[in-house]
């Protein structure tokens, strides 16, 4: 199946350091991801709590404020976060994301300047998809490619599903996807995109 890369790929980058936010934004936008043709849109925030706010999730809630999927909303396709931040750490943020039924399938990348194996393992066990040592380099961006492809593949499949179910309204073998979570808790890179029937993660944009 050809994967059509049309819609922008939206990354939410979380880092308390101002120069680092500028760098990660540029790294993401500069990467050609080895020839994938798409536009990378980057939103940067300076804290975990602002990240949760942007994602539509407040600390004490598990579900978004209003999840109306047919409205125009901003989809976040990947979250990349610093580990050491004042207040909510990147690990805390990761946990909150993975505890949320509607956010947990967004791939999360952790960045840290400290090379501590126990920290790295803890993050991976909690569901982080990648761990980057800082300073992050252009060559690290290629590690994001499988996550991008998986996300695009999933969206493309869902678009096809949606079109199919619209034109064949009595087709019971292809149910319209609801927010059914099909992912297991283990963070396997071999998860098949076609087996998942989850809506793209759409979040109402916040105007601040």
């Amino acid at each position: 199946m050809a994967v059509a890369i049309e819609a922008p790929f939206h990354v939410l980058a979380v880092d308390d350091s101002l120069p680092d936010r500028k760098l990660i934004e540029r790294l993401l936008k500069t990467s050609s991801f080895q020839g994938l043709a798409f536009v990378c849109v980057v939103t940067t925030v300076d804290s975990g709590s602002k990240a949760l706010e942007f994602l539509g999730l407040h600390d004490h809630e598990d579900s978004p404020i209003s999840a109306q999927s047919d409205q125009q909303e901003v989809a976040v396709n990947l979250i990349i976060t610093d580990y050491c931040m004042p207040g909510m750490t990147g690990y805390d943020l990761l946990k909150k994301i993975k505890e949320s039924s509607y956010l947990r399938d967004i791939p999360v990348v952790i960045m840290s300047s400290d090379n501590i194996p126990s920290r790295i393992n803890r993050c991976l066990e909690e569901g982080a998809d990648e761990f980057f040592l800082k300073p992050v380099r252009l060559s690290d961006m290629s590690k994001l490619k499988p996550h991008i492809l998986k996300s695009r593949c999933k969206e493309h499949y869902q678009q096809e599903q949606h079109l199919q179910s619209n034109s064949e309204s009595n087709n019971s073998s292809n149910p319209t996807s609801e927010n059914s979570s099909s992912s297991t808790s283990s963070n396997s890179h071999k998860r098949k995109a076609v087996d998942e029937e989850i809506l793209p993660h759409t979040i109402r944009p916040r105007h601040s």
Partner: protein
Amino acid sequence: MDYSNLRRQAASMKKSLFDQGYLDEQFCQVEDLQDEASPNFVEEVVTLFFKDSGRLMSNIEQALEKYPRDFNRWDTYMQQLKGSCSSIGASRMKNECMSFRDSCGQGNVEGCMRSFQKVKREHAVLRQKLESYFQLLRQAGPAGAATRPVM
């Protein structure tokens, strides 16, 4: 105006910044992100670095006074500063940050104070050198930043 001469001067200045250890390979990584679409990227990041590091250093200065012997707090602030230095390749300044953190680990107040003075000095020196470098680059014209130093 002799642009090729200015470019040579800029290249030479950059080389000496590397030779003297002010900058390391990470600075080259940052330069690699600059292109026609983002022609002032390096200078923009460096400007942000000095703005951010100024703030962080002032936090540390206050903490040294307000929270005596609070090595955890001092170390946490310095960790942030060290991270910023690392991101742009500010090598000498980063090393002084690391000395400070070592002193924190040893519970050595005098060591922290001495290291902090060195951090401040390296910060000031680097700022002056990079300002001169960027000024020269601007005079030399758009092709000025093209070369990597020969190491």
